[in-house]
């Protein structure tokens, strides 16, 4: 789960990572007072807000409210602005980059630091990005700060500040189950290193132990949210074939195959490993709300009983009055029985994926 900048910075402050002074406002009137020049920043879960006019400066209260009003009315890359963060304008001497994330291939936290911050980090050449693989059994001791400080060009007090920020950020990363914590830019302002921005991604699977964090819904479409809350892995896509399959890998392979056959999927829906009539039936609710032109169901029933799945499909067809073309692939325990039940209801049923998709192609008149 992505956190908004202001939420990330609240965690930074909790862990002793310095941030600019400021506050969040959901409405212009919530801005009651400003001290000196401020920056008003759109709170959206997407990058590039600067280029889109989502960051403005103000020196009076009226001006700050006016800028906030403008920004709060914006939509940036399809995301409605959620709030504005009003912060003291920093005197920026230099911008750095610092992040910690999980590196899958070493199965370890990885620290990345660069003296070239404030730009998209992909545009920084590899030799300017210093990486340190954290041994999770050792963690981030002060020596890690010394190693990176030296490379970053920090010495004396700045090296101490940097080490402290790094150690605190790592504690945050671990204790809040982060997948990513990023400070870009980490600015040098009047002798102090300050996190001028924050990007924090929390592992969704850990949210039960971070009840202080509110759920940020905005990353998903309303339909995705609805389906996810009902327990389905569901992603909207821009095609027209509704898809229900079981297992993330098989669902992905189903989408891939559709595309290779010239058919465009409308969604990704992974039923999961269950075999209940209701779970199968209810999955159709979300697929139907996406208004597809046809539906493909692809079930490789390991231990899933195919007759149960068939019953769910038939119940959906009847209950929701589905008239769309529907092709089902059913393989596994009681597969013949399941397919027979479907055929009797006029639903095309196959034992293997290839023939099911070829049938669908024929129906849709694809290539």
């Amino acid at each position: 789960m992505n956190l908004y900048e202001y939420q990330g910075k609240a965690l930074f402050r909790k862990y002793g990572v310095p941030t600019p002074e400021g506050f969040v406002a959901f409405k212009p009137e919530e801005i009651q007072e400003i001290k000196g020049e401020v920056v008003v920043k759109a709170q959206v879960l997407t990058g590039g807000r600067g280029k889109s006019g989502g960051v403005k400066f103000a020196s009076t209260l009226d001006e700050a409210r006016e800028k906030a009003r403008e920004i709060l009315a914006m939509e940036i890359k399809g995301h409605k602005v959620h709030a504005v963060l009003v912060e003291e304008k920093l005197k920026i001497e230099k911008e750095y980059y610092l992040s910690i994330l999980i590196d899958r291939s070493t199965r370890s936290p990885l620290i990345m630091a660069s003296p070239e911050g404030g730009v998209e980090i992909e545009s920084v050449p590899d030799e300017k990005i210093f990486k340190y693989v954290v041994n999770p059994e050792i963690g981030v001791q002060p020596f890690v700060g010394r190693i990176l400080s030296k490379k970053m060009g920090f010495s004396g007090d700045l090296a101490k500040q940097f080490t402290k920020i790094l150690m605190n950020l790592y504690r945050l990363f671990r204790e809040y189950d982060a997948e990513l914590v990023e400070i870009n830019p980490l600015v040098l302002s009047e002798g102090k290193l300050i996190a001028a921005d924050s990007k924090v991604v929390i592992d969704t699977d850990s949210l039960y132990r971070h009840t202080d964090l509110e759920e940020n819904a905005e990353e998903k479409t309303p339909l995705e949210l609805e389906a996810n809350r009902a327990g389905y892995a569901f992603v909207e896509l821009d095609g027209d074939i509704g898809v229900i399959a079981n297992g993330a890998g098989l669902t992905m392979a189903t989408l891939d195959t559709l595309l290779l056959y010239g058919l465009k999927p409308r969604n990704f829906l992974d039923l999961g490993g269950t075999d209940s009539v209701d779970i199968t039936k209810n999955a159709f609710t979300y697929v139907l709300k996406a208004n597809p032109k046809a539906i493909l169901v692809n079930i490789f029933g390991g231990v899933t009983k195919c007759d149960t799945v068939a019953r769910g499909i038939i119940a959906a067809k009847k209950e929701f009055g589905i008239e769309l073309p529907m092709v089902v692939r059913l393989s596994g325990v009681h597969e013949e029985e399941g397919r027979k039940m479907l055929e009797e209801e006029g639903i095309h049923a196959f034992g293997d994926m290839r023939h099911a998709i070829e049938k669908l192609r024929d129906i849709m008149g694809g290539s």
Partner: protein
Amino acid sequence: MSVIIDKDTRIIVQGITGHQGSFHTGEMLKFGAKVVAGVTPGKGGQKVHGVPVYDTVEEAMVQEPEATMITVPARFVKDAAFEAMYHGIRVVYILTEKVPLQDALEIVSYARTHGHVVIGPNGPGITLPGKTKMGIMPNHIFREGTVAVASRSGTLTYEIVNALTLNGYGQSVVIGLGGDRITGLNFVDVLELFEKDDDTEAIVLVGEIGGTAEEEAAEYIKKNVSKPVVAYIAGRSAPPGKRMGHAGAIITRGRGTAESKIKAFNEAGVPVAEFPWEIPQVLKKVYK
């Protein structure tokens, strides 16, 4: 030969009295696995399919288990895994999905430096047809043979194993590495085992987008694997993931996509099937 476990490996099931634990214990027993004990706190003294249940792993150690299947709720997985490792259980297979990433990191990190093997989290387990099974793969799709399969998926693995069996390719071992971002085993780890395994003559890798495990596997195959390898990659159609944003992109630097993985495999002489059902045909080109 054995890959991680063998036909005599004594297995316990942590969470045996749950729906999944109980059902799959039955399936594993039918497959011939030596499930010697189960553990569920508060349920000691019961039996599940004739297997004795204990309150703690410490008590279950009288059955001398070497491997455990963990199927407890996600928030208790870390506890269960460390309970098993504290008592010296060598192989820890975690069936549970949605295990917090940092928990997985701690489990895997401890395991790797203390000589334990972790399979999963969030994978279907390991099956050695004709020998044993620890996990949830459906019994009926397997046939004893010479093809080793490693996969990051669940159901898609069954799909491919089923296609192999239907086309006359039996399996020496099938391992589901697990679908999470941190797993105990990756392709390189199992390739090393497959290369050494006398029962394995050919290898199938079922990868997917995300991470660079396939690219690393391709590098490894070039240098260290003499047996024929074929692959399938799921996720060609997926839009690039947004979660890790720019920082994630720096680690992978353009790798991690389906294209990158397919290219890496091709460069390593590993043919990649376009459709899951094509695996047997592709295999036929490189292996009898």
